């Protein structure tokens, strides 16, 4: 079953929304708020859209906007992937 890792997530974000010069995305950023990483709501929407297309899953509108950190979003995605596998 496919899963999403934090580094795969940051790669997607870098691709679709660039990265903030002052932030090191390869560092320990799993629990840092997206806003502090320089990503706004548009960037998150775009990231969610790419994940949904690439992994062929549906993410609920509300839960995407509630995921405030990379770890939270990765968990959300992996839950959806686990659910889809059944």
């Amino acid at each position, binding site marked *: 079953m496919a899963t999403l890792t934090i580094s795969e997530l940051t790669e997607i974000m870098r*691709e*679709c*929304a*660039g*990265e*903030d*010069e002052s932030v090191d995305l390869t560092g320990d950023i799993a629990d840092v708020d997206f806003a502090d990483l*320089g990503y706004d709501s*548009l*960037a998150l*929407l*775009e990231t969610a*859209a790419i994940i*949904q*297309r690439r992994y062929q899953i549906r993410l609920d509108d509300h839960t995407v906007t509630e995921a405030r950190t990379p770890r939270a979003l990765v968990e959300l995605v992996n839950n959806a992937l686990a659910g889809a596998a059944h």
Partner: protein
Amino acid sequence: MTVPAVVTGIGVVRPTGLGTQQYWSATVAGINGIRRVTRFDPEPYTTKLAGEISGFDPARHLPSRLLPQTDRMTKLALVAAEWALADAGIDPATLPEYAAGVVTASASGGFEFGQRELEHLWSKGPEYVSADQSCAWFYARNPGQLSVRHGMRGPSGVLVADQAGGLDAIAQARRQIRKGISVMVTGGVDSALCPWGWVALLAPGHASREENPGRAYRPFARDADGWVPGEGGAILILESVEAFQRRGGARGYGVVAGYAASFDPPPGSDRPPTLRRAIESALREADVAPHEVDVVFADAAGVPEADRVEAEAIVDVFGPHGVPVTAPKTMTGRLFSGGAPLDVATALLAIRDGIIPPSINVDDAGAYPLDLVVGKARRRPVDVAVVIARGYRGFNSVMVLRGLSSGRRAPEMREGNWNGDSHH
């Protein structure tokens, strides 16, 4: 007495010139920036030449976060604006909260971004349209983005009048200065060099089919066969005299002394075109007589009917061979909303340095009694310049620029000291 508006900063992005110094040297030298299109394969199209900006690496100038979200026209405008603000010595963050605004012109919006998103939609499906599309392509993206980037909360806007819009935007900026805003960022930048933009630009049949860059865009020539599309433009900083003095501004380029706009009667009407009246109104507002004008930057469409109308209007106002006329856009192609702001920047540098840049690829003004500056740049003192800008379907805008060291400047300006010397 209305408040004079001074241009205090210039930022240029155009073929053959990124940055004011580079572009001015290339312009004075008559360097041709038109060449075969490289952005896509031009072979299938009836026009194969363009004024492309080469050597622009957005990643060098802009934060990575902005790059995927914005069309090329926005990237160019952001960089030009940064340069213009630096040139003026202004950091908007240090200004009072609502003291600065942005009004630019646009003609095609972020069309390349739009083409990509349309392609995603139609070849793959709605879920492939990006979250950035909602505001990457629309005409107001540039002022919106500039406002966010530099924290400018004053009145902002976008004017569209094809190639005439650039002057309308500068005039609107001047209006805001007169109403009390301290600093206005203005001008225009356009870039629609993608195949979808290309076929749209070519649709009326006014773009040259010539494949030799030295023979393609030849306004006023007897065998003129159209213009060449280009990308780029200029961002200008406009300030009130008081704001400029208050912050001990180092250098002003000149004053926006006059402006007028008009619209032509419909095709087939027996009423005359209105460009002449617009030129006369602008001169009247500037309190300048035709013989006091040192140079006219022509719209120079290169489309025979348009050339004829423009030449006649110039001759009606200034007399045959009555004023030097030039079209440096022969070196860049037609820049749409960027064209006229770039001409204004060029006019101000002509005033500063006493040099009129040439029009290239033409030997003379063909059948028209115009003193077209061709071959080499012409050195002579320039104090008053007129810029003409015309938009497809009948838009006419005219602007008069005047130097600051002119003995004719308004009384309150004589007290100022404009050339970097200290003043108290």
